[in-house]
C-alpha cells in the first residue's frame, strides 16, 4: 500500500478524571490506580476558566471538553499551533448523543415554562448532536470535513474508522479524531452500570504515513486494521468480537504473537466479560500490558474506546520495548456494535515505507 493510503497516529490529547492535560492522563496511566469511589469528574473543569470568557456563554460542558481537548492537540510548544495542521484539516468526533443535560434542560422548559416555546434560543444548538464537533471547528478554524459519529461505546473506534476512510478517499489529509462524554445528573439518570461513571474527551491526530516527520512529529502508531461486527445478545459478544479480531490480524497480515498491549473499553458486566473472553480466545495472555479504560477513568460510555486508544498510544510512547510491536483496542456496545483496532507501535524507518 502506498504511504499516502496508510494512516498513522501522530499525536494525542486527553482531558480526563486524572486532570486537565494529557500529562495528567499519562501520569494516571503510570500510576495505574483509581482514586476514590463514586462518579469521576474531570477536576477543576470550569468552562470559563479553561476556555476564557469570550464565546463561552452558551457552551455546555460536553462541547467545552471537546473544544479544550482539540485545543491541546493543536497546541505547539511555542504557544502557537503545531505545524502542518491548516484550516483545511478535518475533525471527527464520536458521541452517544449530545449533552444529556442540555437536551433534558431544553425539553424541560417546553413543559414547565408559561409557553412551550419559552426556551433559550442560544442553547438550541447545544441540543443537536453535532454541537461539539461544529463548535470545535469554529473555535479552532477547521474547515475540512467535520463529522459526528455515534456507535454507542464503540464511538471512538467508529470515529477512527471514519477518519481513516476520509483520508483514503482524499477528503482530508490531517484529521483530529476522538470522542467525548460529560458527566451530569442527567446522564446519571440515563445510565447505570457496574463501574462509577466517568467523563472526559480523548483525541488523536491522524495523517498519512511519512507526513508527520515533515512537520517534526513522531509516528506514534500506524492503524493497521479496524474491524466491526454486531452481536444480538450478551452471549454473542464473544464470537462477534472474536471474529473481528481474527479479521484484523488477517487483514494486517499479523499474528497475535507480536501484541504488546491490549486495551478494552468495557466494564465488569456481561458485555465486558464477553469482550474479555474474545480477547482470551484470540490473543490469550501473550500481551504484557493489559489496559481497561473504565478502570482508569470510570465508565465514559461514548468516550470509552477513545480513552482505550489514547491509553495504549500514550503508554507505548514512553515504553521503548513497545516499538515495532502491535496493540489491540476493543469495544463492545450493549446495543450491538463490537469493534477492534490493530495498531503497530512506534516510528517507522524509511525501509518500512514501501
Amino acid at each position, binding site marked *: 500500500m502506498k504511504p499516502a493510503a496508510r494512516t498513522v497516529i501522530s499525536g494525542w490529547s486527553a482531558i480526563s478524571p486524572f486532570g486537565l492535560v494529557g500529562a495528567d492522563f499519562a501520569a494516571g496511566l503510570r500510576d495505574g490506580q483509581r482514586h476514590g469511589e463514586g462518579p469521576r469528574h474531570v477536576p477543576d473543569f470550569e468552562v470559563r476558566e479553561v476556555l476564557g470568557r469570550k464565546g463561552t456563554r452558551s457552551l455546555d460542558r460536553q462541547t467545552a471538553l471537546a473544544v479544550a481537548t482539540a485545543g491541546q492537540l493543536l497546541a505547539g510548544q511555542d504557544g502557537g499551533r503545531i505545524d502542518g495542521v491548516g484550516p*483545511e484539516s478535518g*475533525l471527527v468526533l464520536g*458521541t*452517544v*448523543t449530545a449533552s*444529556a443535560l442540555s*437536551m*433534558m434542560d*431544553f*425539553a*424541560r422548559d*417546553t413543559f*414547565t415554562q408559561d*409557553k*412551550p*416555546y*419559552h*426556551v433559550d434560543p442560544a442553547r*438550541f444548538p447545544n*441540543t*443537536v*448532536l453535532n*454541537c461539539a464537533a*461544529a*463548535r470545535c*471547528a*469554529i473555535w479552532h*478554524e477547521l*474547515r*475540512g*470535513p*467535520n*463529522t*459526528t*459519529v*455515534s*456507535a*454507542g461505546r464503540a464511538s471512538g473506534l467508529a470515529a477512527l*474508522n*471514519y477518519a481513516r*476512510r*476520509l*483520508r*483514503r*478517499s*482524499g*477528503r482530508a*489529509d490531517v484529521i483530529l479524531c476522538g470522542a467525548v462524554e460529560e458527566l451530569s445528573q442527567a446522564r446519571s*439518570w*440515563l445510565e*447505570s452500570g457496574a463501574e462509577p461513571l466517568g467523563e472526559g474527551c480523548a483525541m488523536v491526530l491522524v495523517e498519512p504515513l511519512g*507526513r508527520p516527520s515533515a512537520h517534526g512529529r513522531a509516528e506514534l502508531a500506524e492503524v493497521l486494521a479496524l474491524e*466491526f461486527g*454486531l452481536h*444480538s445478545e450478551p452471549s454473542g459478544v464473544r464470537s462477534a468480537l472474536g*471474529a473481528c479480531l481474527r479479521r484484523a490480524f488477517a487483514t494486517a497480515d499479523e499474528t497475535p504473537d507480536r501484541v504488546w498491549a491490549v486495551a478494552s473499553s468495557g466494564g465488569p458486566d456481561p458485555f465486558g466479560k464477553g469482550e474479555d473472553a474474545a480477547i482470551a480466545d484470540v490473543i490469550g495472555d501473550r500481551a504484557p500490558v493489559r489496559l481497561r479504560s473504565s478502570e482508569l477513568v470510570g465508565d465514559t460510555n461514548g468516550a470509552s474506546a477513545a480513552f482505550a486508544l489514547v491509553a495504549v498510544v500514550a503508554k507505548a510512547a514512553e515504553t521503548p520495548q513497545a516499538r515495532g510491536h502491535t496493540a489491540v483496542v476493543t469495544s463492545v*456496545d450493549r*446495543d*450491538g*456494535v463490537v469493534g477492534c483496532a490493530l495498531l503497530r507501535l512506534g516510528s517507522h524507518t524509511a525501509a518500512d515505507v514501501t
Partner: protein
Amino acid sequence: MLTAVADDSEQLPASAGRRVVVTGLGVISSVGVGVAEFLSGLRAGRSGAKPITGFPTDGYDHAIACEVVDFDPARWMAHLDPAELGRASQFSVAAAGMALEDAGLTAPDLLGRHGLISIGTTNGETRELDRLVEQEVTGGPERMDPAIARRVNAGRLSAAVARELGLTDVEAVTIPTACAAGNYAIGNAFDAIRAGEAAFAVCGGADALCRKTIAGFYRLGAMAPDRCQPFDKNRQGMLAGEGAGVMLLEDLASARARGARIYAEIIGFALNCDADHPVAPNQDSVARCMELALHNAGVKPDQVDFISAHGTATRANDVVEARAIRQVFGPAPPRTVSVKSMLGHALGAASALAAIGCALAITEGFIPPTINHVETDPECEIDCVPNTAIEASPRIVQNNALAFGGNNAVLILSKFEEHA
C-alpha cells in the same frame, strides 16, 4: 476556486474506485410510505403539512408540521419488537427493510458479504428523552422509565437495522451531523464501497418529530404558520417534518451479477465546514462544498441538469444558498427545487429523502416541483420549478444539504450508463 482537498495525499477521484449504484429505495414520509406513494407525491406536488398529532401543542399560535401518519412499524419487523425501539429507530429499520425488498434482496442474500449500515440523524431518539423529561417533571426523577432511557443512544438507529436483518458482518454507524446527516451517511457509504471496504451499504437518514424541534425553531421565528414556501418572496420559514429515507447501494459488479435494477449511480460527494457561525450558513463555504463535489464527480457545472436544494424556506437559508449556487453555476444556474416544500424539513432524513427524490427523477424522467410558490424572491433568482413537476430527462443531479454548525454535504447522482 478549486484548491486541492489535500496538499500531499493522493486524492482518489470518484472515477478511480469501484462504481457505486443505487439499487433499492425505502421511504417513510409525510406524503406517503413506500417508494410508489412517495413518487406519486413528488410528481403531484403533494403537501405533507397538517396539524401535529404526536404530542400536545397547547400554547402555540400555530403548530403545523409534516408528520408521518398511518405508520405501522410491526409490518417491517420480523425479529425486533417495535416497542423496544424509539420512533426514529422504527423509521430507520422499516425504511431499510423496504430498501432491501425494493432491491429484490432478502437478508440471507447479504450474509457472507461485508457491509455498512450508515444512518444519519439530527435528533436521534430525542423524542424518547421528551418522554423521560415529562415523567421527571410530573413525578420526579425516580419515575423515569429505564426502558425508555435505554433507547437514547443514537447508535441504535443503525445497529437496530443490522439486528433486524440478522447481519453480523457489518459496520453499523450513525452519523448525527444534524440537518445534513442524510447526505453525510450516503457519502460515507459511497466512499466505503468505492474503496472496496464494503460490498453493499444500507444508508440514509431518519428523524422523529420532537418537542424540542418545534419549540426551538418556533422560538427562533423560523417556523412557518401553515405552509413551506422555499425561494418565495413572502416565505415565512420552515415546517418541521419527519420520516426516513434509506438506499441500498452496491458496487456495480455485484448489481450486474444479480441483474439488479439500477435507479442511478452515485458519482460524487463532498463535505466541508463553514467554521463560522453556529446556525447561519456561509455563502463562500457552501459554494466551495458544491465545487468540491462537482470536482469529485468529474463534472462541470453546466452538466448539472437540476439541483435539489437544501431550501428550508427560512429567510437566511434560501438567499445564501441561491447566491452560493449562482457563485458556482453563474448567472443562469440549473433549475433548483426544494422538496421540503412538500415534505417539510425532515432534519436528518431530509437530504436522504431528497437524494431518493433525485434517483427517482432520473429513473422516471421528471423534475419535482417547489410547491406553495407564488412569487420568486428577487434575491434568490432561480427557477424553482414552481408548483408543477415538469417532464425532463435529467442525467446529472446535485443534492445539497446544509446543517447547524456549518456542516455542508453535497451529493452528485447520475443516470446509470454502461460506459461512464
